[in-house]
């Protein structure tokens, strides 16, 4: 015999914790007298228990970075303070950068939560330094032969990292801007070889370097979590005017 709708409603309300005292009394009386009702209550109770105890899935650990990189910046890029000043003001990074001045690479990653400076508002991801020669495979490179700036910029890859390797000489102050539109890529670190006065700022989809005259070697690390084909667009500016533009392409090995 089918259970009256009224009692199936009461059974479900009971399981959902949405039953009044009066309804509960009525339900208990029904269950005491009706074996079919008790069986349905037990079955649905078991089902609800199973559903309520299914473990929550953990989102991918990099998803938050991707989302934060996807939302538009709320601060003009020029408003960010010099990045190296922040790095050198942080004891853990002061050591790392001093080490990096003599040698070049081995990512010694420092979690970004160690850096509580507002200048890093627009930087999501990790900040790191380098301590061994760059030996990651070259995906693409470009040669510059301008009046103001000359040298090579290589895009290297190793694991989920992309490394922009700048080996340049300039006759004046140069601003370098690297743009990447893929939201699964984010700034992950910077290092330079024995030089001073460089400024670095990062925001979603863009890293900017301020390079003083002379011979310089920089490495900019990008976390390439998606591992997809991507293009990094480089612009070199002197006195606010673009003196050279180039694209570097990365395609993952099949």
């Amino acid at each position: 015999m089918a259970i009256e709708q009224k009692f199936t409603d009461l059974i479900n309300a009971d399981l959902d914790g949405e039953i009044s005292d009066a309804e509960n009394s009525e339900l208990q009386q029904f269950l005491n007298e009706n074996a079919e009702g008790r069986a349905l209550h037990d079955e649905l109770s078991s089902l609800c228990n199973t559903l309520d105890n299914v473990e929550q899935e953990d989102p991918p650990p990099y998803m938050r970075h991707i989302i934060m990189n996807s939302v538009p910046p709320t601060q003009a890029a020029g408003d960010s303070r010099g990045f190296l000043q922040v790095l050198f003001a942080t004891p853990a990074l002061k050591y790392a950068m001093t080490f990096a001045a003599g040698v070049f690479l081995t990512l010694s990653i420092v979690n970004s939560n160690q850096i509580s400076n507002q200048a890093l508002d627009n930087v999501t991801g990790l900040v790191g330094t380098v301590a061994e020669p760059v030996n990651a495979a070259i995906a693409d490179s470009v040669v510059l032969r301008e009046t103001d700036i000359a040298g090579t910029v290589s895009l290297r890859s190793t694991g989920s990292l992309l490394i922009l390797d700048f080996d340049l000489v300039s006759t004046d102050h140069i601003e370098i801007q690297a743009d990447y539109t893929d939201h699964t890529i984010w700034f992950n670190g910077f290092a330079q070889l024995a030089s001073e006065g460089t400024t670095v700022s990062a925001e979603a989809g863009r890293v900017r370097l301020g390079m003083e005259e002379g011979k310089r070697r920089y490495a900019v690390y990008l976390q390439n979590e998606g591992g997809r084909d991507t293009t990094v667009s480089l612009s070199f500016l002197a006195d606010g005017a673009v003196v050279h533009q180039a694209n570097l392409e990365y395609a993952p090995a099949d």
Partner: protein
Amino acid sequence: MGKTDDTKLIERCISGDRQAFEALLTEYEKPVYNAAYRMLNSPDDARDVTQTVFLKVFENFGQYDPSRRFFSWIYRITLNESINWLGKANRLEPLTFEAADEGKGPEQELESARVSASVQAALMTLKTDYRTVVVLKHFLGCSYFEIGEILELPEKTIKSRLYTARQQLKDELTNVG
């Protein structure tokens, strides 16, 4: 997090505070991802929907009605995005059971993964309307009233859908054993 805390965070988000947005992201990332995952049965799709949801939230803070609770707004966006995604991908057909990923941990973990996979497969046999109320009730812990607020449906309809969904899930899980 309470309604007041969310409201304060949203006010800060509207004024351009990215840290406030990140706090909302931290609070709601997991439930949004889980709701999308249970609706779509795919970690990759759930990830993409979660990203879309938070971008929509960020872009539409101006449309948020502060007299309503934030979670009802973001869950509504999540479910709508998931349903849109299902429509785009033409994945309305029930999916087959997936075996639990074996050999990754202790027996308890395997059992937990097996139950999760079985429940997920049974969920995917439900029509979207029914699956939606089950996800809200059992995976997001919403009350009848809250589900009604999110779906903009009367409580009577919510109860009816939930009861039918449970009956179908019970039968599906019993048949599978």
